[in-house]
């Protein structure tokens, strides 16, 4: 089963590479470099240490803002989902934050806080937070009241109830927002870096854009996709299996 799914994805990715290669050969233009060329540049960028440096910085920003957005989002989402009055009052705030364009929050953060690291991270968190809140709020609304009553009848207390009764029920919602979050956050991080940092993937890609270096843009993108895929398959998948073992 596992082997065949591995084979499957290899074949499917191979086909994609083949299409890319064929199209590149057919067009034969510097705007679409062949995968082999991109691979060469990728290896060179890794060897020079440039790519690991910028990739590392971007991943660091991603990790911090992801963690912050998830922690805050789960806490706020849980509160809004459980307390009706609170939700009625703050619902409009949520709608506003959901609809502010990412670009606007990023620019405002840089203007208000200056071109500093904190402003960059804050801007990313602000962009992701409403999505997490909305997803977790949905989960908190559908919590099993019977189990919560059971926990109260047996005097679990707040911490034990959250850990053993509430979080396991929220788990699918947390995973859903983690998955969409990872994809969303790294896109925003790149924009943040492009607009106001002097390192990171976004900065580099902006640089390559000005130099019209399409091969390097693609090489950086490929490296990033590989990393995100690794996080997804190793970290998130194993978390999934561990948490679903009771099923």
């Amino acid at each position, binding site marked *: 089963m596992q082997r065949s799914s591995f084979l499957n994805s290899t074949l499917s990715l191979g086909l994609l590479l083949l299409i890319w290669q064929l199209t590149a050969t057919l067009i034969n233009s510097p705007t679409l470099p062949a995968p082999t060329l991109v691979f060469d540049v990728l290896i060179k960028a890794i060897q020079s240490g440039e790519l690991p440096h910028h990739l590392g910085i971007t991943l660091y920003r991603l990790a911090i803002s992801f963690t912050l957005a998830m922690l805050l989002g789960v806490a706020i989402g849980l509160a809004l989902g459980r307390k009706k009055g609170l939700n009625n009052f703050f619902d409009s705030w949520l709608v506003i934050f959901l609809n502010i364009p990412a670009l606007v929050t990023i620019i405002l953060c840089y203007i208000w806080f200056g071109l500093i690291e904190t402003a960059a991270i804050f801007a990313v968190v602000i962009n992701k937070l409403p999505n997490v809140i909305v997803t977790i709020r949905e989960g908190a609304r559908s919590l099993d009241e019977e*189990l919560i009553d059971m926990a*109260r*009848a*047996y005097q*679990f207390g707040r911490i034990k109830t959250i850990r*053993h009764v509430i979080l396991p029920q929220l788990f699918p919602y947390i995973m859903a927002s983690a998955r969409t979050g990872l994809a969303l956050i790294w896109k925003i991080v790149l924009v943040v870096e492009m607009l106001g940092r002097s390192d990171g993937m976004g900065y580099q890609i902006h640089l390559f854009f000005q130099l019209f270096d399409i091969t390097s843009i693609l090489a950086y993108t490929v490296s990033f996709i590989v990393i995100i895929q690794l996080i997804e398959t190793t970290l998130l998948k194993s978390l999934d299996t561990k948490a679903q073992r*009771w099923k």
Partner: protein
Amino acid sequence: MNRLIIDIKDKSFTKDGANDAFCVIKNLHLELNNNEFVCLVGPSGCGKSTLLNTVAGLDTQFEGTINAGDQHGTLKTSYVFQTPRLLPWRTVLENIQLAAGDETIETSRITHVLERLGIETSLNSYPQHLSLGMQRRVALARAFCIQSHTLLMDEPFVSLDQPTARKARRLLLELWAEHPRNVLFVTHDLNEAIELADRVIFLSDSPSSVIGDFNVDIARDDRTPEQVSQFINQLSANHQNIQHLL
């Protein structure tokens, strides 16, 4: 002495949108002493579950008091619900240990209770891998493993077929004899009530209060179906006011 004194002056619900509150329990006084087994019988919707919830501390919005007399401060209850209500993501053992709270119960004690119920091999299983009947027994084990003053049971055998229910009742009595405590058992099945209880208490329609309180003075081993129906006939002959519940 293990006591439970329930004295509810007024328990009302305010329905969404309605201005006036709906009174469920009015002037209900009830006392359990010395590890008594008391069955509550009443028409459906009369507030039996509400009563259990107030005793369990799940519902604190009422006028009146519920306490254990004066000897021990807080009243510790365990609760067996209509459905097992086990945490599906925790094993049988973990479910019981979590309910025990700060007091650490030895695994041997848990295995002993599980053995009594014939499910000791499921100690490390997850509830979803057990049949519903086994899950019910785990819920029963959970209630008896922890040291509570009062055991609340809300129609725990309601969806079982007759032979299984009879077996469950026997197991319940065995466990209770081994781990005695006050039991407040809600049922709408009078036969079940008489088979189990020291005392049967009848509740009126809502707003409910006590309208009948009878000792079942037949030895537990002698409570055959004939004896039980004879007891019901006697009640029916002597007490007009509870006739609609018999």
